[in-house]
């Protein structure tokens, strides 16, 4: 693996390896001294063309805990606001000697362009591109699922036999797309629940089931008993048309509230990639309930990103993996 552009870049063994390394990294984060010297002398650039709090901070913390040098680059206040192109920005970073570039961009495919255009030699990590993919979020979600549903000491295990519902704005969600791909690779069953207007065209070819009926899915009538439910943020900033009549109606039909929480089996966990719209897709009772892993997902994010940086940067660069693995895979497995 030279880049991490899509959750589909990982096969089952590769995904389990990331989760196992992340578990080791998480163990080091319980210590008094959290910093490891592993990536000393390497440079990680956070290239964020789009706003982000937790992903950028999480990558920054992960790189610093591994002793890499971190350069933060945000589009606002940089030459991008003067009209600099992605290419020229990339050439600048290459000249500075970036070993890894963590990129978030509002255009789907920007990380792929960066990785394959030959502008930079470093590893490219997709930290969210448009409505396409967000592979490290899917990895941290899979890590959280494995910890809660399989066990603390789940080294080598995948998510076979687990059923996960992903609920809400699937259309605009890169998190949903990466999660469907990765959870399917790890052997879990995925059900997407959304109003018809918020399911993407072609979702029928994704490796998952779909439903419009949240109550039925939570009660286990559609896909059997759930092990986890993942609520997605309604991405108002990407909505240039009316996808549902009103916030109130959306919340009534697709929001996770106290009543719906009680429909879940007792062991099932509640997840949300953040940031949350409290009162819209998730109520305060659900977000703050003991079965919510929302805060834990953030700390797991640091461990998973440490694992990804370790796996991409620590070893001697092996034989070139060839362009085939670097071409963004289609959503059809």
């Amino acid at each position, binding site marked *: 693996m030279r880049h991490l552009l899509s959750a589909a870049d990982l096969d089952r063994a590769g995904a389990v*390896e990331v989760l*196992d*390394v992340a578990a*080791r990294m998480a*163990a*080091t984060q319980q*210590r008094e*001294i959290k*910093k*490891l*010297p*592993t990536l000393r002398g390497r440079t990680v650039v956070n290239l964020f063309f789009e706003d982000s709090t937790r992903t950028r901070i999480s990558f920054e913390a992960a790189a610093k805990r*591994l002793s890499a040098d971190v350069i933060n680059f945000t589009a606002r206040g940089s030459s991008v606001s003067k009209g600099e192109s992605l290419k020229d920005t990339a050439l600048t970073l290459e000249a500075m000697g970036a070993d890894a570039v963590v990129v978030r961009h509002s255009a789907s495919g920007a990380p792929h362009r960066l990785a394959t255009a030959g502008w930079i030699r470093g590893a490219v990590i997709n930290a969210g591109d448009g409505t396409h993919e967000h592979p490290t979020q899917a990895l941290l979600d899979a890590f959280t699922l494995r910890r809660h549903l399989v066990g603390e000491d789940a080294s080598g295990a995948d998510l076979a036999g687990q059923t996960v519902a992903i609920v809400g704005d699937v259309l605009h969600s890169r998190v949903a797309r990466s999660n469907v791909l990765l959870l399917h690779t790890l052997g879990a069953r995925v059900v997407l629940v959304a109003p018809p207007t918020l399911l993407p065209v072609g979702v029928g070819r994704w490796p998952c089931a779909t439903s419009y009926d949240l109550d039925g899915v939570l009660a286990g009538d559609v896909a059997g008993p759930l092990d986890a439910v993942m609520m997605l943020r309604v991405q108002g900033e990407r909505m240039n048309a009316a996808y549902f009549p009103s916030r109130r109606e959306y919340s009534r039909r697709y929001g996770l509230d106290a009543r719906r929480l009680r429909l879940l089996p007792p062991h099932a966990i509640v997840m949300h990639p953040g940031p949350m719209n409290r009162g819209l897709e998730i109520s305060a009772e659900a977000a703050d309930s003991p079965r919510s892993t929302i805060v834990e997902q953030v700390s797991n994010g640091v461990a998973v990103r440490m694992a990804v940086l*370790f*796996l991409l940067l*620590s*070893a*001697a660069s*092996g034989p070139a993996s060839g362009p085939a693995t670097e071409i963004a895979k289609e959503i059809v497995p």
Partner: protein
Amino acid sequence: MTSARPGPNHIVLEAGEIARSLTRIAHELLEHNKGADRLVLLGVPTRGVPLAARLAARLGEIEGRTVPVGSLDVTMHRDDLRRQPMRSIAATDLPPGGIDDQIVVLVDDVLFSGRTIRAALDALSDLGRPRAVRLAVLVDRGHRELPIRADHVGKNLPTSFRERVRVSVAEIDGVDEVRIEGDL
């Protein structure tokens, strides 16, 4: 020197000799430490871990008390990560009492360049502050690249730089033996 040996691939220590070496090291440790007080054994993965457990069992038999034992992963402190293919990270398990103010004995199978032990010392200093650190190895094959030496050695084994010393332990490999694999 090599020509005097019985072939390019041969066993230098058998199960009985390994067992006697570990028993001797156990007695040396107790003699030097004047008992098992404050001793904590930490095995360096992979094969140092079962060796540390065996050594702790020996110490326990001799002294009639349990000696804390654990493992110490050094992967993330190595200085040669970028020169090698991907290494997997092993577990670090410290005994419940921790290592602060204890006499930590690092246990490894082969002492060669000394770089693994250098990494282990760094890893250790991130975990606590032992009163002293000692090193016990089953085989010392020479060719040190750093000013590091073992306090307790099962067998000193002069080797050629091109030879490979392969330690097998029953817990992992199904058999106890030390083998030299040949002048490649």
